[in-house]
């Protein structure tokens, strides 16, 4: 499974963006063939208890989460953990306000107690003046099931095989001259059951795999060191994804480049230069400067106390030229191997695909059921885009980022074609340091590898270089995108947001892209 396989399915669906999300016909409630009877009965107990206590809406998520981590360093296992957590959370609407309670004890008395506690909490909160929650309609899915497409469940692969795999990565680096090498596997399996008072019963299994690694070279006499870190080899998939990545050649290349970086010069002074950003770097720039600003809760001030607000507010819909005309960003939760993909979100809304930026113009946001009405007048979209997600049973679901992708240029060329159009610039490879302000205007990003571009050719390597800019100016300076063959998908396993903090896994696909006259600076 290659990271580039996204495109074939993506391009086919892009034309369907304007269509409403598919809605399955309602099925009789007695169709329960695939359900474990306990889950369904427990769900009904909770939902009935909530309704009796005065909830106008309720849902329950019962879930079991398997998390496995093995961490290695050089030729030893540094640590491992294999965690299982099981429990449920009940969310209710009462007097127009949300309430939520959760427990690890999945039993009839407890689900009823917790449901009542959630209602009591909502009613208490409702004493504070508020605007009642308004939910966009969604079809009932009384018999729904979805599983991340995969061949080999990573939890069925032995610890010994995984350890051998990781120590092989480290050995490649050490044998090539690295002084230190670390690698890890981080696997997640989540079995989730969702039921709501609107008649949905949805069972899903999410599988995610992630293999971060890092090599370090030290010049002990000079007291200097350099590293190359790769924390983006991840997907919604099984063990087969791990095996399909060519780690030996990636690690060998990184080791050689790290040695080179150790002795590389940095920039003399800040300057303005053209940039070519490779997909393995650009994905995080997209995440930070497009994914986060188009979260509707952030734009409306719901995240003001933590993750921040957004320069990109609903009054700018269909008016803000977010990027140059060659740039379109799609959001989706449908790509089979992307990290945020699901069958249904945690509102019970089927996975969607839509455009956020079309030909450079801001046209939509990321939404959950309770947000749709807030921008429906401008977008004319009356369905939720299905962006509700809770990290696990113990944390309430809220609006989280879907996969957000930069659409390649159908007639675009290669990386070399983009480089050829630059007289004085930089080529940046792999995600490095990254930081952006709380309204997503001012960002500063760096890669693991940076090279000069002179007269259309790639030149010498530089170290400790960052680029800094304003989101809208930066995306409007984009004048070149790679073609469909250059499209690659990477992801963030631990995207943080909310209070209490929750993590979300999300992928971003993109081609390489060229940007004109960006501020670059020596960083360090």
């Amino acid at each position, binding site marked *: 499974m290659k990271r580039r396989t996204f495109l074939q399915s993506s391009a086919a669906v892009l034309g369907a963006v304007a269509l409403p999300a598919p809605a399955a016909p309602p099925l009789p409630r007695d169709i329960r063939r695939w359900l474990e009877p306990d889950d369904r009965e427990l769900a009904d107990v909770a939902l009935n208890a909530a309704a009796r206590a005065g909830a106008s809406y309720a849902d329950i998520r019962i879930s079991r989460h398997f998390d496995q981590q093995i961490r290695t360093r050089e030729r*030893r*296992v540094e*640590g*491992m*953990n*294999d*965690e*299982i*957590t099981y*429990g449920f*959370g009940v969310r209710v609407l009462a007097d127009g*306000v949300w*309430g939520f309670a*959760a*427990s*690890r004890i999945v039993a009839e008395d407890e689900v009823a107690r917790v449901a009542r*506690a959630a209602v*009591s*909490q909502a009613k*208490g*909160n409702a004493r*504070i*003046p*508020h*605007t009642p929650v308004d939910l966009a309609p969604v079809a009932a899915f009384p018999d729904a099931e979805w599983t991340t497409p995969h061949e080999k469940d990573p939890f069925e692969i032995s*610890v*010994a095989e995984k*350890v051998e795999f990781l*120590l092989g990565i480290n050995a490649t680096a050490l044998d090539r001259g690295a002084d230190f090498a670390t690698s890890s596997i981080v696997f997640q399996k989540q079995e989730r059951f969702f039921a709501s008072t609107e008649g949905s019963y949805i069972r899903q299994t999410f599988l995610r795999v992630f293999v971060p690694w890092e090599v*370090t070279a030290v010049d*002990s*006499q*000079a*007291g200097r*060191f350099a590293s190359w870190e790769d924390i983006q080899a991840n997907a919604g998939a099984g063990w087969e994804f791990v095996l399909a990545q060519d780690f030996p050649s990636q690690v060998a290349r990184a080791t050689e480049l790290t040695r080179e970086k150790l002795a590389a010069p940095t920039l003399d002074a800040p300057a303005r230069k053209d940039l070519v950003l490779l997909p393995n770097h650009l994905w995080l720039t997209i995440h930070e400067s497009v994914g986060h600003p188009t979260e509707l809760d952030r734009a*409306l*001030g719901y995240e*003001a*106390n*933590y993750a921040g607000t957004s*320069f990109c507010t609903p009054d700018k819909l269909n008016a803000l030229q977010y990027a140059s005309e060659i740039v379109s960003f799609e959001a989706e939760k449908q790509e089979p191997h992307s990290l945020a993909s699901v069958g249904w979100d945690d509102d019970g809304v089927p996975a969607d695909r839509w455009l956020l930026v079309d030909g450079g113009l801001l046209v939509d946001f990321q939404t959950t059921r309770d947000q749709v009405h807030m921008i429906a007048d401008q977008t004319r979209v009356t369905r939720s885009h299905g962006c509700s997600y809770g990290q696990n049973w113990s*944390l*309430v679901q809220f609006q989280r980022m879907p996969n957000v992708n930069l659409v390649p240029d159908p007639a675009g060329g290669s990386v070399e074609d983009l480089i050829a159009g630059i007289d004085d610039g930089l080529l940046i490879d792999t995600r490095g*340091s990254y*930081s*952006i*302000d*709380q*309204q*997503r*205007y*001012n960002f*500063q990003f*760096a890669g693991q590898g940076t090279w000069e571009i002179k007269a259309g050719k790639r030149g010498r390597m530089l170290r*400790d270089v960052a680029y*800094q800019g*304003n989101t809208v100016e930066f995306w409007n300076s984009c004048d070149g995108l790679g073609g469909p063959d250059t499209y690659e998908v990477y992801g963030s396993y631990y995207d943080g947001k909310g*209070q*209490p903090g929750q993590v979300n896994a999300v992928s971003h696909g993109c081609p390489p892209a060229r940007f004109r006259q960006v501020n670059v*600076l020596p960083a360090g």
Partner: protein
Amino acid sequence: MAILTEREARRIVEAVMERASADDTIVSLVSREGGNTRFAGNGVTTSGEVANVELNVTSAFGSRIGSAQTNGIDDEAIAAVVARSEEAAGLAPEDPEYVPPLESADYPRPPAYFESTAAHGPAERAAAVAAAIGAATGPDATIAGFLENYGVAYATGNSRGVFGYFPMTWIEYTNTVRTPDGRGSGWAGVRLHDADELDAAGMARIAAEKALASRTVVPLEPGEYPVILEPVAAAVMAGALVGQMSARRAMEGRSYLSAPNGGTKLGERLLAPLVTIATDPLYGEAPGRAWAEEQLPARPTTWYREGRVESLQFDRFWAGRNDTQPVPGSTNLVMGGEERSLEELIRGTERAVLVTRFWYIRTLNPADLTLTGLTRDGTFWIEGGRITHAVNNFRWNDSPVRVFSGVEAMSRPARVADEDWVLSPSFVPAVRASRFRFASVSQAV
């Protein structure tokens, strides 16, 4: 339901040991119960209550180690987690750095549990939030914030007889007030052990005052300026320094504390003589935890004394390799201050940028600990001993080593909120430093 008592925790640890067949077994048990209320736009948005446990078992056959974790504590769950841990250990390779568990440990009992916090329920949270909304809002302000409190019981044990237990409570309150025109934003927050010390309405008033005062900005060019970092911003700098005290990384040549040829900067003066930073689990104003990593009892350690590196952290393996004793890491952070208030610190300042809070901090260069980040929610100019006006926010690129080498004056220390890079709990003063590198303007408010 409530957090586990010492007796209950001990019984679970013993149940693990009864089922264990490994040469050595280590147990970590965390029991937590609490709730939260989140609000924005002057109303509650989400809230929650949850009770959970984490039972972690580490097994060793010789030097083969495995680990497993569950949130079940009945007989079946305990048997299953022991079996999974031992199965993993059986499949693991020999660990050349394995150190058997401690034979004994005498744990301190940090005074960090308060009934006032444990008893704080949804009604108390709603009342505090209502008071904050009332204190902050009017036609010129909108408030968003978060209030969370919980009790947590920690237990640890091993097959050689070590057992420890201690309970803690936490209450955290943060709020951001913004003006409806989007031109002003102010923040305040704190994380405490004792709910009786929390004044949510007072926090709301501070944030509102900053929001209103920051509406009219006088532009300030990027550059190097003297700064006053309020305690939470200073705690970020201190946390970044203390988070990197590993002797091993320093001796391996990959830390800001590395010296050429495998040496370290132990004993060198890196910071201004005013700066002393320590950890002390029993420090009354900000008690830490009873044990650090590897079940090592937490203990007072001074990392920087009057600017000099006084201690480095040694894990048990690295200590043995270097013929020294282990030095456990921090479970809290205590930085000495001076006997004056923040207002007095401002009054004694000729010119400086006053920073309320930092945001989105990442490492730029680990070799000298250069970080990048931004200012947020209240950045002001001080001239002639008073705040004269708000200035724009900045991106900054600087190292806490360099910033703290220029510390000239401090306020009394204070408890701070649990921000990124803050080692919680931290008890840190506001600091005035002679120079801080603001790299570019951020339009964000």
